[in-house]
């Protein structure tokens, strides 16, 4: 970053929108994954789309890299500042531009908080369905960048299923109008490609989201099991019975007791696994589904089943699950949250292997599981002040992700790759597949100025890590240099 560049940047933004003093930039040193930190040299906080475009054009001219960031709640160090790059913080783009209750859409700037959309829509009996746990703080632009989910995504889908249109800017400062007010667009589905692209392709300034009618009624059933495998089988049995629950969550013994100690949700303690199954929809349908779920849980060997009879009780059942992360946080100075997804049927074998590895590493693990969609969040407990333990936890976490891939799953269900899981990308994808990801980036950003070094590893790095995916015994791309 040359003084000439910074001087030009100052002409584009009000003084308070440009931070360079270390005491001002340090709060931006990490996103929600604070194990990765780096103080940015320069933080730009544009207040308008025009300023975003101008900043990008300037960066493009000067070949300065750009890391876009929303609210900074990401969990994979995707918004980690990069040396030599500016940090482009979009939180001041926080206006709801339009809300159309009849068409059930909201058009909002990318810095608008997820929950703020549902709050604005509530007066019309509508809401925005994806509800990541950080929804009170996280911004919709970040949700699109990560394809965020939430506890309701088995029934209501991820971000990709709930957006219609984007305004985004290439690093060259060109506007991309992606999607439309209709349900599809001509040409390639760039809306899907942009969703989950982790700030690597373009910078999003505006999002049009779909709004859904709020369900008439929601009800939750809690079931305790003396065996994790039985609870896992119950999940499949509920789905086989034709019910798609709005939420279907599982906790293991350590997570249950931590949650119970923390918020006193009234969970049974003498069990190995707890399932929370919520159904929602039309009043009559909820009644039918609750009866079905109850019968399936009983037939699946639940040792205790409780149905929330009131809203207060429903919130109490959920309170324990929603507080699971901070509750587990009380068990040890630090925890490391993993995010693999597995076919649901593989749950017992994966949990058993995690327990074995937990013993091998001497690090306890609490498991919280979006059981409905196979998304596992093992929380590895450790103490960063003990020399080497962070490294041990990271290595253990990496092994869990490789295990998820081995059983046919993926290294990340909803948190993204960022910096954190870049090494495991070498396990999940072959060299030609990774090369194709680089090709996709090059189609938008040939000079690799947007969020450089994130999400997709360089092929030679995979070789260095010794993590190269080898398929069919043959080394892919034998002509590529490895060092």
């Amino acid at each position, binding site marked *: 970053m040359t003084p000439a560049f910074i001087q030009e940047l100052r002409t584009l933004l009000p003084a308070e929108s440009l931070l360079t003093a270390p005491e001002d930039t340090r709060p931006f040193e990490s996103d929600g994954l604070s194990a990765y930190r780096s103080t940015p040299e320069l933080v730009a906080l544009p207040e308008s789309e025009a300023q975003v475009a101008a900043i990008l054009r300037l960066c493009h001219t000067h070949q300065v890299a750009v890391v876009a960031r929303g609210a900074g709640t990401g969990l994979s160090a995707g918004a980690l500042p990069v040396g030599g790059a500016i940090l482009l913080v979009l939180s001041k783009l926080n206006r709801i531009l339009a809300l159309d209750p009849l068409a059930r859409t909201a058009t909002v700037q990318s810095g608008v908080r997820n929950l703020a959309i549902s709050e604005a829509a509530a007066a019309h009996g509508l809401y925005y369905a994806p509800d990541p746990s950080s929804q009170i703080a996280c911004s919709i632009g970040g949700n699109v960048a990560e394809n965020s989910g939430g506890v309701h995504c088995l029934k209501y889908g991820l971000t990709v299923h709930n957006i219609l249109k984007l305004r985004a800017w290439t690093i060259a400062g060109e506007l991309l109008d992606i999607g439309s007010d209709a349900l599809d667009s001509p040409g390639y*589905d760039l809306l*899907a490609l942009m969703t989950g692209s982790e700030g690597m392709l373009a910078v999003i300034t505006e999002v049009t989201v779909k709004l859904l009618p709020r369900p008439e009624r929601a009800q939750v059933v809690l079931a305790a099991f003396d065996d994790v495998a039985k609870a896992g089988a119950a999940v499949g049995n509920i789905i086989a019975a034709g019910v798609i629950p709005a939420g279907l969550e599982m906790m293991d013994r350590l997570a249950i007791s931590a949650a119970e100690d923390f918020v006193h949700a009234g969970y049974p303690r003498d069990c190995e696994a707890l399932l929370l199954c919520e159904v929602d929809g039309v009043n009559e*349908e909820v009644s039918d589904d609750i009866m079905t779920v109850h019968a399936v849980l009983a037939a699946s060997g639940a040792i205790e089943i409780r149905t929330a009879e009131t809203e207060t009780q429903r919130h109490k059942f959920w309170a324990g699950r929603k507080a699971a992360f901070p509750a587990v946080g009380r068990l040890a100075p630090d925890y490391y949250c993993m995010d693999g997804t597995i*076919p649901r049927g593989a749950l017992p074998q994966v949990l058993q292997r995690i327990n074995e590895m937990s013993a091998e590493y001497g690090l306890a693990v609490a498991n919280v599981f979006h059981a409905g969609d196979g998304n596992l969040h093992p929380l590895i407990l450790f103490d960063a002040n003990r020399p080497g333990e962070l490294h041990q936890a990271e290595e253990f976490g990496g092994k869990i992700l490789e295990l998820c891939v081995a059983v046919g799953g993926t290294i990340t269900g909803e948190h993204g790759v960022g910096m954190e899981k870049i090494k495991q990308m070498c396990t999940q994808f072959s060299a030609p597949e990774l090369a194709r990801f680089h090709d996709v980036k090059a189609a938008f950003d040939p000079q690799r100025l947007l969020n450089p070094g994130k999400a997709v590893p360089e092929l030679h790095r995979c070789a260095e890590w010794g993590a190269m995916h080898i398929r069919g015994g043959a080394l892919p791309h034998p002509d590529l240099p490895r060092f």
Partner: protein
Amino acid sequence: MIEALTDQIRAAYASDTPLIIHGGGSKSFYGNSAQGALLDTRVLQGVVEYQPKELVLTARAGTSLHDIESLLAEHRQGLAFEPPHFGAATLGGCVAAGLSGPRRPYTGAVRDYVLGVRTIDGTGQVLRFGGQVIKNVAGYDVSRLMVGALGTLGLITEVSLKVLPLPMAEISLQFEMDEAQALITMNRWAGQALPLSATSWHAGLLSVRLSGAQSAVNAAHIKLGGATLHDASAFWHRLREQTTPYFDKRPLWRLAVKPTCPPLNLGDAQWIEWGGAVRWLASDLSASAVRQAARACGGHATLFRGHAPADGVFSPLSPTLLAIHQNLRQRFDPKRIFNRGRLYPDF
């Protein structure tokens, strides 16, 4: 069989010979005409994996869509996007064309249910994207990018889809209503907790399908009133497959618009679907007039059936988006071997 296909593609790449990807041929009418030798995907047969409890089905691209839906129905599951077959459809063609049926506005499109694909790119490389799990954000979402790309980003050899339980009960209702009132009604109902699963308006008649638990369907029926549509499944099937005489008209345009867009006033011969978001139009109006009308309603127009205008059946892209399309095409299929000209002329 993958090897034979990669050999054919490598040879085509080496000799710069275009290929037309051909499954059941049921959607040959769709898109612009392509040139080249036939590459038959029907050698890629069979369901690879289907576990009803996982809600995931994986099958090879040349497998008949009919067979897949029959297998799913045995387990009371189905493809929620109700893809039109238009003949002897294959799974690969269904995904490559990206067309969805009457249930689309209420439960999602093909692309919403694609979890992963195996492909062969334009140089003969076998690549796999996505997977068999419902949540997966590792790498760019190339599998969804393949949906609707009409084969121009590679040959799809295998697809994993999310499937859903079939509705327990269904009922369809009809209401006499003019077009403007029907558009408002469809949108208003979609904003309420009703188990809507399809809507149609044509010639003064609004038809609505409700799907879900018997109790929910009954309750909605009481709330909405209307006349019961008998033989409803045949009615929706004819709409999905476009076998009513209305769809014999040429040229037939598909206008995808904002669902609340008021009547387009482009002539009488319209059939409205998808809660107002799709308006079928049989009209001799110029391509530019039809496209302009769709654009004014926040959408786009496709010449679905009939003789293509000079700039192709799909609405042209802005220069910026076209450049990105060309960049992507260049990298997935550098010699434009697959379906050359099918998506856009000279593309």
